[in-house]
């Protein structure tokens, strides 16, 4: 006789809770110790304008990483989009055109990535590494000697404005975050992404149109990078070439910190969003406190490492004895990924 129990509806959201607690602790710490951090709440909200672009990159990256791939070109892509937006504005085109152009450019790069990776079957690390450099060349060339700056106020409002004290940028991010969560958790496409991440071959054999899904995921990542580019240009009031390498590290850190398995499959977008805020407020708080951006980078790097180590220990896979758990940690293969 079969004995089947209903699967539990709610997995203990262990990691997410950890992140929330850490976020709360961090906010309290900064509010109490650093002046001008909270400014009665509105200050804190305003700070988000700084790191929301990273959050958008993290959303796209998370989806890509869920499939077991990586996209190293997202940050450069955002730069490219910002340059195009700025150039359009400089040439007299309106805000709407500039925004659409930026998103189109980002999407185009993402589509290129997607096609080469999905259709030609080349490793995503290499492709996006190469694309990153190609895009960097393009954006430096388009930006020219003096990158565009000084944009119309209607455009600036996207990056600097607020609706009822809530920054527009934050609203954009939250909207897209909710959409991403809905897509990944609840739609066929989202299910395809996760299954591809767990086993590409099994996904092929079970009828998932893997090539289409992969192409789509990179295209979406590119589109989100385009939006990030718009917000960047709007916030800084100038096109942002060369931000390529700087934003990549925090974006990946947010994804990894958010519990997404670098080899694909496991991970929840919601937790990535929390990690974005955790990381974002941390860097902003440190900067306000007076730490250099180098210190921020180093702390980010440390967080990346720490997150991974913690994740391994937290893994519920081995409820087994401590010996087994230690052996797994010692196993030379814990970072080489799942077989097959």
């Amino acid at each position, binding site marked *: 006789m079969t004995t089947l129990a209903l699967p539990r509806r709610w997995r203990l959201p262990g990691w997410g809770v950890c992140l929330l607690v850490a976020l709360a602790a961090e906010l309290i710490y900064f509010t109490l110790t650093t002046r001008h951090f909270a400014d009665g709440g509105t200050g804190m909200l305003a700070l988000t304008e700084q790191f929301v672009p990273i959050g958008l990159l993290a959303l796209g990256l998370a989806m890509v990483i869920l499939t077991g791939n990586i996209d190293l070109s997202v940050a450069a892509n955002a730069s490219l989009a910002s340059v195009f937006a700025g150039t359009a504005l400089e040439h007299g085109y309106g805000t709407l055109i500039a925004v659409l152009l930026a998103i189109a450019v980002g999407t185009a790069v993402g589509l290129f990535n997607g096609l*080469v990776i999905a259709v030609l079957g080349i490793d995503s690390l290499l492709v996006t590494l190469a694309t990153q450099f190609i895009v960097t060349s393009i954006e430096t060339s388009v930006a020219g000697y003096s990158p565009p700056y000084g944009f119309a106020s209607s455009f600036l409002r996207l990056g600097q404005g607020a609706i009822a004290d809530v920054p527009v940028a934050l609203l954009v991010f939250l909207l897209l975050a909710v959409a991403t969560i809905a897509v990944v958790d609840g739609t066929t496409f989202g299910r395809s992404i996760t299954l591809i991440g767990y086993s590409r071959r099994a996904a092929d054999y079970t009828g998932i149109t893997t090539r289409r899904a992969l192409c789509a995921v990179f295209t979406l990542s590119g589109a989100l990078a385009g939006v990030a580019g718009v917000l960047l240009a709007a916030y800084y009031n100038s096109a942002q070439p060369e931000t390529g390498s700087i934003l990549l590290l925090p974006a990946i850190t947010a994804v990894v910190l958010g519990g997404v398995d670098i080899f694909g499959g496991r991970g929840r977008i919601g937790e990535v969003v929390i990690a974005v805020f955790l990381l974002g407020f941390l860097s902003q708080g440190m900067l306000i406190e007076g730490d250099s951006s180098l210190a921020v980078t180093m702390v980010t790097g440390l967080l*990346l490492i720490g997150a991974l180590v913690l994740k391994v220990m937290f893994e519920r896979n081995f409820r087994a004895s401590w010996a087994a758990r230690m052996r797994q940690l010692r196993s030379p293969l814990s970072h080489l990924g799942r077989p097959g």
Partner: protein
Amino acid sequence: MTTARDIQTVLPPEEDRRQSRAMIELLRRREVQVVAAMIVIVAVSTAFHPYFWASANFGYILADSMVIALLALGETFVMLGRGIDLSVGSVMGLSAIIVGFQIQNHNMTLLPAVLLGAVIGVVLGLGNALLVAVVRLPPIIATLGTLGVYSGLEFVVTNGNQVDTIPNSMTNLGSNQVLPGIPEIFVYTLPLVLIAALVLRHTVFGRSIYAVGDDAEAAYKAGIGVQRVLFMTYLIAGLLAGLAGVVFLIYTSGASSTTGVNDNLSAIAAALIGGTALTGGRGGAFGALVGSVFLTVTLTAMSFAHMPDVWQPAGVGALVLLAVLFDRRARDASVARRSKRRRWRR
């Protein structure tokens, strides 16, 4: 106790010879193909720009490629073990900056400079080695992290200044030609390539790298110290990158806070072109050398064709894509060939 009677080599001699010849062919193929492609590019370039063929130009190309060659050599060690090092360019940059300041401001001479570069490389490479082999981070993440930290450090160390004065006694190594077209620096760098090739092909350590890259778990079960091997590959990559920094100073007689930032990809590109696969287990030292020269030749040909420098990164990116595509085609062809052969044997 073995008796001669028990051992019988059943394989007929003809098949033996045929297969060993085939083996050699297979080994040589990638390097030969790259050299052939290079000859084509040189020919085309020279047809449009006769100066391309001048020995002075070749000297510059070879000297220039030595920097990437050393980086690619280190990258080859890492990639053979199925890892990747995204930070070699920054290691080179830091080494170039620190050593450069010593030369510029404190009159350090060549030999101590080389030693210092090596030490810096090892120390920085140690960071990667520890993160990957001890802390067990995925190499992408670990070296991305160190890339960030080391590039940041480049800014800190330069502190707004840059290296711009290197004594002629050193820069001459890049321009002096021992033979027409062969700069002195090539003569000093070539032994490193040879040693690397020897290590990879004929030492137990070198063969372990291939084994680990091919199947780390099986290597572990066979008693190979996988983590130790990986640790060493990242150290070696760091060491070679440190040396590359010194060569960079010799060739360009300067260094700044952005030195090396584009060279990460070039190192990987050169290794890929030379036949080393990202998935480990295949490739070698000569491939790194050939790949770097090919890369430099191609980039020089591009600038001769009046492409602005800003497009060089794009050029490298395109070459990476082409190299990988080409690699896949070749592998698919050999798999098809293999399956045909297997049907035969039955």
